[in-house]
């Protein structure tokens, strides 16, 4: 027997899944040990070994694949625990990373965007004293205007070393168009300090836009050495117990990378946490045949939404991490402050929910750990949705009386409501707000939520998804069997993935006729060859062979003088003029699909801004097995209790099922509750749920949809 492990270290919990050759899945939750995260991970390994009746060593020797995701990079970044880093840049532009295109003062403020007095600039990652300028200049064409002053460059490197830097980042203007000066500096650094951690912007982020390119490169250098020692520590622990399998690390751009490469690509590990859940959903959606999925992860403090279109996650090239802006392809996740811990309050006779959260400490009032502000979880307890005796599989007793008391004094009495009305109100407001976000996430990509299936996971999600899912108008709601460890499942099932990008501007003139007359085929072929070669080089290793590597190619295009751009796929292999003209035609079509009929602006000409290659290679791993139904289709509830449903404005007798009793093919009619060890799935009145062949719960919402009234005044506008 061989085992495949996926593990995800979050802020509070470390989630682990273990699969065997037969596709049997086991799930574990242990506490994260922030000072040395490997302790929490090894504890989960110990639990798995115990379950399997093996010694730790006997188990680990049989692990052939170990995938790991971690918030280590994000935490090191937030806590500014990277190394002392120097930055070398073009003379005249040393402030670029301090200026941040003026976005640093407001990035991440969310609902507090309008409160100017609390604004501040983030602490610099690299202080001004460690930013060195060198004389050199390259222009927009990649032409050298002034050659690098190598003597000066060497002096600058030596000075930084004297100042005690442990890593160096190099980011010069237009280096992605012509990396010659960065390469020269790289050579100088290697000569002066052979062992030092070095990041070069034309390698780390060859993208137009000096601020984001510099920030990405600098953060990569700043975090590199700490990620290196993090990976080494975990690897040593595993190897000490006899691990001899494949070791990969989850990154944020759509897959895992071999652990050795993660050391060089620290910046790509930032925000990899939410990406795991989206990738698990991609995997699951592929198996189930759903092309379009909205993913939603509701935990204690936030509600994260991602989108899968045509089986692919929406990936964004620009992201914001702790007030800095980086260019790395990242699985796009939009978040609002709505989680189980979101606090409800009354002001001026109105009821508000969030974005303030009680967090994990003190947590909701019902946790009885000193929390006094009523939260969404408190409302769930008051309404009978969460059983205070069976929270976290009975591991934590909740105090319902205290939750009731808090809602009574802080919400119900000030508003002249009953406690139940107040609790139901808290849920209604937050469920609707989450539905608003689901709608917005689809609309912002030019899609309609009615074409989507909603995947709902995270500890608090399944208790609310029947409601926010129905409200948003999706056609079905699916709670994955792995809802509480969904990210770890994603990490355990993802392919190895690398992605390379090059900013390169090519354009047609205005009023062009044939695109290929202006866009050079040989340049296309040259760029893709270069990118695929790079990509292949990093993908090939002990367990990936050339035959297994699959590439996909993307071109970013826009209409000249416009800002919105679209990534369009193009065929592999040797390209011809036909491919290019076809690409432009598909771009125009896609642009109008995405931004609306008549928004195309062909007359202005077409501009290409960059090229991307994704390379994927499957890793050997097991797949979760189907559970064939041997039941008569009827699930037997274990008990019943009164649960309040705002749809009927009353308590209803509700059957309570336990997940252990459920088998594939069973149907459950709402109102009903399915209790899992880490979560509670609610099925609303008039809704029906089925347990599918992978033990996911699929809820068909009764249409609470708004009437789709045709608007009389909506006229056709043709220009």
């Amino acid at each position, binding site marked *: 027997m061989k085992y495949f492990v996926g593990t995800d270290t979050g802020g509070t919990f470390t989630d682990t899944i273990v699969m065997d050759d037969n596709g049997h899945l086991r799930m574990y939750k242990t506490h994260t040990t922030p000072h040395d995260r490997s302790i929490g991970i090894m504890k989960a390994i110990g639990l798995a070994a115990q379950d399997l009746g093996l010694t730790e060593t006997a188990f680990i020797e049989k692990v052939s694949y170990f995938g790991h995701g971690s918030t280590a990079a994000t935490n090191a970044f937030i806590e500014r625990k990277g190394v002392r880093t120097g930055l070398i840049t073009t*003379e*005249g532009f040393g*402030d670029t990373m301090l*200026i941040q*295109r*003026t976005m640093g*003062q*407001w990035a991440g403020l969310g609902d507090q*965007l*309008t409160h*100017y*007095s609390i604004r*501040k*600039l983030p602490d610099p990652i690299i202080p*001004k*004293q460690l930013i060195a300028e060198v*004389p050199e200049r390259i*222009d*927009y064409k990649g032409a050298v*205007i*002034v050659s690098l002053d190598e003597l000066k460059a060497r002096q600058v490197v030596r000075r930084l070393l004297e100042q005690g830097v442990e890593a160096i980042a190099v980011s010069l*203007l237009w280096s992605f168009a012509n990396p010659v000066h960065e390469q020269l500096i790289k050579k100088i650094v290697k000569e002066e300090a052979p062992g030092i951690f070095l990041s070069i912007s034309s390698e780390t982020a060859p993208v*137009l*836009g*000096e601020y*984001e390119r510099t920030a990405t490169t600098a953060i990569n250098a700043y975090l590199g050495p700490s990620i290196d020692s993090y990976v080494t520590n975990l690897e040593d622990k595993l190897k000490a117990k006899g691990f001899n399998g494949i070791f990969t690390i989850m990154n944020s751009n759509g897959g895992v990378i071999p652990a050795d490469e993660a050391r060089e690509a620290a910046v790509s590990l930032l925000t990899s946490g939410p990406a795991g859940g989206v990738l698990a959903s991609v995997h699951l959606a592929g198996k189930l045949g759903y092309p379009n999925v909205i993913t939603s992860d509701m935990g204690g403090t936030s509600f994260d939404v991602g989108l899968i279109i045509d089986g692919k996650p929406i990936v964004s090239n620009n992201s914001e991490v702790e007030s800095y802006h980086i260019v790395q392809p990242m699985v796009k996740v939009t978040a609002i402050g709505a989680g189980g811990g979101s606090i409800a309050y*009354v002001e*001026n*006779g*109105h*009821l508000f929910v969030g974005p303030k959260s009680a967090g994990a400490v003190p947590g909701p009032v019902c946790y009885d750990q000193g929390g006094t502000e009523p939260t969404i979880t408190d409302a769930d307890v008051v309404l009978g949705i969460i059983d205070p005796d069976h929270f976290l599989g009975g591991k934590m007793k909740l105090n319902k009386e205290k939750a009731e008391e808090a809602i009574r004094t802080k919400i119900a009495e000030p*508003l002249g*409501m009953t406690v139940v*009305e107040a609790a*139901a109100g808290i849920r*209604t407001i937050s469920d*609707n*707000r989450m539905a*608003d976000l689901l*709608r*917005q996430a689809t*609309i*912002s990509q030019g899609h309609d939520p009615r074409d989507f299936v909603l995947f709902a996971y995270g500890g608090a999600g399944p208790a609310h998804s029947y409601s926010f899912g129905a409200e948003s108008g999706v056609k079905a709601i699916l709670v994955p069997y792995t809802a509480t460890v969904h990210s770890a499942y994603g990490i355990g099932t993802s392919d190895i993935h690398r992605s390379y990008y090059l900013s390169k501007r090519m*354009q047609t*003139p205005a009023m062009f006729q044939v695109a290929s007359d202006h866009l050079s085929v040989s340049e296309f072929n040259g760029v893709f060859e270069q990118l695929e070669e790079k990509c292949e080089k990093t993908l090939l290793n002990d367990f990936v062979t050339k035959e297994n590597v699959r590439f996909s190619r993307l071109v970013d295009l826009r209409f000249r*003088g*416009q800002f919105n751009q679209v990534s369009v796929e193009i065929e592999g292999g040797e390209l011809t003029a036909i491919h290019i003209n076809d690409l432009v035609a598909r771009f125009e079509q896609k642009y109008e699909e*995405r931004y*609306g009929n008549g*928004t195309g*602006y062909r007359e202005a000409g077409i501009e290409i801004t960059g090229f991307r290659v994704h390379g994927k290679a499957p890793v050997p791993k097991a797949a979760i097995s189907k559970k064939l139904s041997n039941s008569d289709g009827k699930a037997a509830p274990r008990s019943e209790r009164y649960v309040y449903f705002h749809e009927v404005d009353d308590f209803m007798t509700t059957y309570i099922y336990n997940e252990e009793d459920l088998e594939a093919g069973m149907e459950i009619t709402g109102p009903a509750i399915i209790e899992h060890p880490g979560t509670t799935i609610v099925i609303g009145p008039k809704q029906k749920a089925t347990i599918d062949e992978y033990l996911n719960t699929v809820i068909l919402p009764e249409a609470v949809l*708004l009437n789709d009234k045709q*608007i*009389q*005044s*909506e*006229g*056709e*506008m043709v*220009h």
Partner: protein
Amino acid sequence: MKQIVEKGVERVSVDPVTFEVLRNRLMAISEEMSINLQAVSGSPIVVEAADFNVGIFSANGNLVTMGKTVIAHTGSLVKMLEHIIADCSLDPGIEEGDMFVVNSPYKGALHAPDMGVLAPIFYEGERIGWAGACLHQLDVGGMVFGSLASSATEVYQESMIIPPVKIIERGKLRKDVWNMISGMSRLPKNFTLDFRAMTSANKVALKQVLQLVDRYSLPTINTVFEDIIQLTKDKIALRLRQLPDGVYRARNYLDHDGQSNRLYHIALSLTKKSDKLTFDFSESSEQTPGFANCTESALVGGIFSGLLPLLAYDIPWNDGVLDPVEIIAPEGIICNAKWPAAVGHATLSVMWLVESLVVEAISKMLASSDQYLSEAHSSYFGGADLLNVAGLNQYKEPFGNTFTEQMASGAGAYDHRDGIDAGGCHHIPAQKIPNVETMESGTPVLYLYRRYMEDTAGAGRNRGGMSLGSAFVVHDTPSLMGIPMAHGLEVPNAFGLWGGKPGSCIVRSMYRETNIQNKFAAQEWVADPSQLNAKKESLSAKPGPIFFQPGDVFEWSWQGGGGWGDSIDREPERVLNDVNNGVYQKETAENLFKVVISKGQINQEATQKAREEKRRERKTYEVAKFLPSSLQNDNRIVLGPIGDTLERVQVSNTVYVQCGCKQLLAPANENIKEYLGVKAIAAEDIGTRVKLHEELEMHEYACPSCGLAHFTEVKRKGTAPLHDIKLIDY
């Protein structure tokens, strides 16, 4: 200011849960309007610089929810709607399916490029609300590309002028009217896309608001519309009642009207009584003969921009904020110009200064309250230096572009922190500037530097934010024309508070006939244009079109933010830190902050001595009036603060103002400046990048007892000092 009660609207009782669900939903609809608008427009000004806004309005035109982009646009939509309802209700009528387009600055637009499109929302034949969107069009015709002509003297010359026109009639575009309008733009295709962006944003609102009406009933939606505004009204009223009643004044100056370098002033006297605010601009200059004026719409836009982030930072933004506001501004003054005055520069000049005045006056009010002192701040930079360029780009094609990096100017200081460096526009909550590489890829220029500019931050105990500066040489083009236009080259508009100094002026230079090409050929990089052999030209605030020749280098930097408090109270270590980080040159810092830096360290002893010397000097400043010295010994009851170095105190039955040193300074109902020591100071005393217009002077006012600087005032020569704060009932 406006009648907020909806007439003839049936109200029902709406429970708090439904209210909050619908409030969130309406905000989400505003957000979806913005998403849609940006998607369709595609214009960099709209998508990247976010120069637009949207709103949902009640049947009578009261703003219910808005977006969080450029604030003034929504104030403008409110005015457009007033004009649509007034001008169009009878003829041509407001019917289901109609949309109206407006760009006349005399009918609601801030200036002509800021075009609005508004749509009534009808339900079962009844008008139940409005949706509206407004954005900055790249070109709306007129004398020059971009429709901002610094030589204009009448609105007729500036651009097309569209009063409210029914452009969509019962769902159908008036094609003939559209052809006429779009035909007047130099960029008809962009113009059309931007128009479509606004109509599709409105359609989003129409569709979704009607879905809500279907689901929740019309009376519910009407009630929620009213209650959302009421919620803001209540919160603003409560906040205002917590603040002291009084008259708070601010005055600022504008150099150059487009025709000549005359000096104008805009003056605000803000009276706050209970929960009412009266903004009186009557003391402002007459309108100018050039294009540096604004109409009533931009006046409201400026007030809206100043008020929202400062007073309603945690309160939902809608018409409720304007409920307590009354405006007094006689027609014919610079900030309420009379037809047909040219007003093209309004948004960047007069409206900007209106906003600055509102910020300054409200900050003085907030600073008179212990509870709100930490929200008060000094002025942000007082106007952007616009630079439109046109000609042939590096691909030898005709092109036009606008520089927007001037937004990276300084923000004002607070009592608890420095102003944000490159903190930018007070009226854009989430601003960003383009990368140098983005600029260079579409505009034929090569930057020599872009960096924080030293000596731009206004000095103070807390300093203002720094401005950026940059320089570029034209690159790969035979011909490029630029039209720079600004004010604030000879007025340091970002005033400080409580003795804090103003930030820098805008500084521009043109280096003609340089040897830069030779330097490049010799592989020598030039990050500092002052090293070049060149003929240096200085440019006036509004020089009209300038032509760049190959090798010409243009260099500019902008206004820094105003400081807060006495600069010689700034901790010497923070000053040293500023010097090390390039905020000030060493000599400037030593002069402004009275520190002595030797070998990279603060010489504590010499610093202390220099500061004592400065205080001693200030104690010798001339004083106009004195309190009887016998008063100094009487018992005092502290009533509240004025800033963080003055206090209102009661002595028997009279209220006085005392200095932090406990010296009783003046009766609270008089202008305290008459009781302080006063001395004229020169532009070079407050930094290397300040210049004063020949009609201006600058005074420093200090406590005669301890030498603490309480005020720095820039004013027209020979005029009385501004009576900043006069509290009523104390």
